[in-house]
């Protein structure tokens, strides 16, 4: 068999070496300590700071130039002023921090409940076909339904006090937490499991020492996703006969067209959720530094 000569690259591209196309189709060169080709690596902190500053500036500019009425978009200063005022005087006769703490309590008690029930259930569903067979239909059935749709049912069944609020938030994070734990069970390589058995491990030991630790990254991600759903459902939960809470604050302010309070409430919710997410990311780095590395 004769070999045909390899196809030649177009002479032009070869001539000016680093042509634009050649550069775009290759991964960027690495800095010392980085690994070539890792998707999306690089520090984004300062870029994010700049992005936030630019958005704040645009917001300020739009309001300062009077392009939109304050009723629709109040200026940053007035939102800040509102914040200071509510911080000092409270909102509807309740101190600001009480609004914050009651909402945080609702989200976190639902979160703890969802983890306590959802994580073991998800692990059990991953491990046992019996559990999976039983619990898969109800969870898959309710999972895609928006919480607002079953909110009326919650009220009919559990009344209008704390129970139905916490339960609504609980349901919104329960499904993602169960599903995360369930798929985490699949993370262990079969070689890791076999190795443990060949050293005399029992089924329980394999579960405890191999399957559970290797599911940790997915469990932590599921918890992160879950609590995110919790914060998004908070406002819906506080639509019902609430007299306190950040969601209540936003909703009742909107009824009186106090746009600056609405925006401030949104910011406060976002900041608390973001702070918690940072905490989860920190935990992730501490607990599973090996994530994706073996």
């Amino acid at each position, binding site marked *: 068999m004769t070999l045909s000569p390899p196809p030649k690259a177009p002479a032009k591209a070869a001539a000016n070496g680093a042509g634009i196309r050649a550069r775009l189709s290759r991964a960027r060169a690495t800095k010392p300590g980085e690994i070539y080709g890792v998707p999306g690596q690089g520090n984004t902190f300062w870029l994010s700071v700049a992005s936030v500053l630019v958005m704040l500036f645009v917001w300020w500019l739009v309001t300062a130039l009077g392009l939109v009425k304050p009723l629709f978009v109040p200026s940053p200063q007035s939102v800040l002023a509102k914040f200071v005022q509510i911080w000092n005087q409270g909102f509807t006769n309740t101190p600001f921090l009480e609004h914050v703490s009651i909402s945080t309590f609702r989200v976190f008690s639902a979160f703890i409940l969802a983890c306590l029930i959802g994580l073991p259930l998800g692990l059990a569903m991953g491990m046992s076909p019996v559990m999976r067979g039983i619990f898969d239909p109800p969870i898959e059935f309710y999972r895609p339904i928006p919480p607002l749709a079953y909110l009326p049912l919650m009220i009919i069944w559990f009344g209008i006090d704390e129970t139905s609020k916490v339960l609504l938030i609980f349901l919104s994070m329960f499904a993602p937490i169960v599903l995360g734990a369930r798929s985490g069970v699949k993370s262990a390589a079969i070689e890791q499991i076999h190795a443990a058995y060949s050293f005399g491990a029992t089924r329980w030991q394999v579960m405890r020492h191999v399957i559970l630790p290797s599911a*940790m990254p997915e469990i932590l991600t599921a918890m992160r996703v879950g609590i995110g759903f919790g914060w998004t459902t908070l406002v819906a939960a506080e639509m019902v006969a609430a007299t306190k809470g950040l969601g209540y604050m936003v909703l009742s302010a909107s009824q009186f067209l106090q746009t600056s309070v609405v925006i401030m409430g949104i910011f406060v919710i976002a900041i608390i959720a973001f702070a918690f997410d940072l905490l989860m990311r920190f935990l992730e780095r501490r607990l599973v530094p090996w994530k994706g590395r073996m």
Partner: protein
Amino acid sequence: MSLNIDHVSVIYPAADGRPPVAALSEIDLTIAEGEFVVALGASGCGKSTLLNLIAGFLSPTTGSLTLEGRAVSGPGADRAVVFQKHALLPWLNVLDNVAFGLMLQGVGKEARTRTANDYIGLLGLDGFQNSPVYKLSGGMQQRVGIARALTCDPKVLLMDEPLGALDALTREKAQELILKIWGETGKSVFFITHSVEEALFMGTKLIVMSPRPGRITHRFDLPFSRQFQSGTPARKVKASPEFIALRETVLNIIFADEEALE
């Protein structure tokens, strides 16, 4: 201790529209106490299947497996496995990985740390006790895997291409190390490799396998590892005329097999 494989066949059932695969057919093999059996053969001829069978991860479709007269019905601490890859636990450091088997068997922390340290030293990993395993090189990870299996003090050591990822020099050192440990402990070993030279040098018994269906086509008794143990340097063993002649014989068998496949 001896392991008996008697007329064993394994057929992987049909799945996803693929026909059933006859991975092993009519295998007869005995691994006597202290024997070092090496399996060689083209890719897909059923070497790993045979190892999984011995380890107890698979049951034979027909035939029987017995260990010291008792039927093999599942994995157990008497048969430790060294895998080619993906088998260390990245959330544990080197020491805890090596001590993992002892921990599962309920050995106290102090005792298992001592034993683990012995094997860590033996495999040249001293000083890395506290390193996370995912930061080690491939060759070092492989040595952790070997140390981990040895600490369990199994009767049979099952190794599936344990040295495949190593560079030539480290590989030769690891070969000698495994032979040394094998000589000192008198364990039975079942060892899979793709390197003819490695197979000849290490085994006391060589089986050559052929695919479709997977079966043992040739068996050789090998003197070379004993020669090495009685003091002949490895290079000299590998350069001896008998070694080279046998290497050619085995290579011819394997090439003939591969050509028949194409």
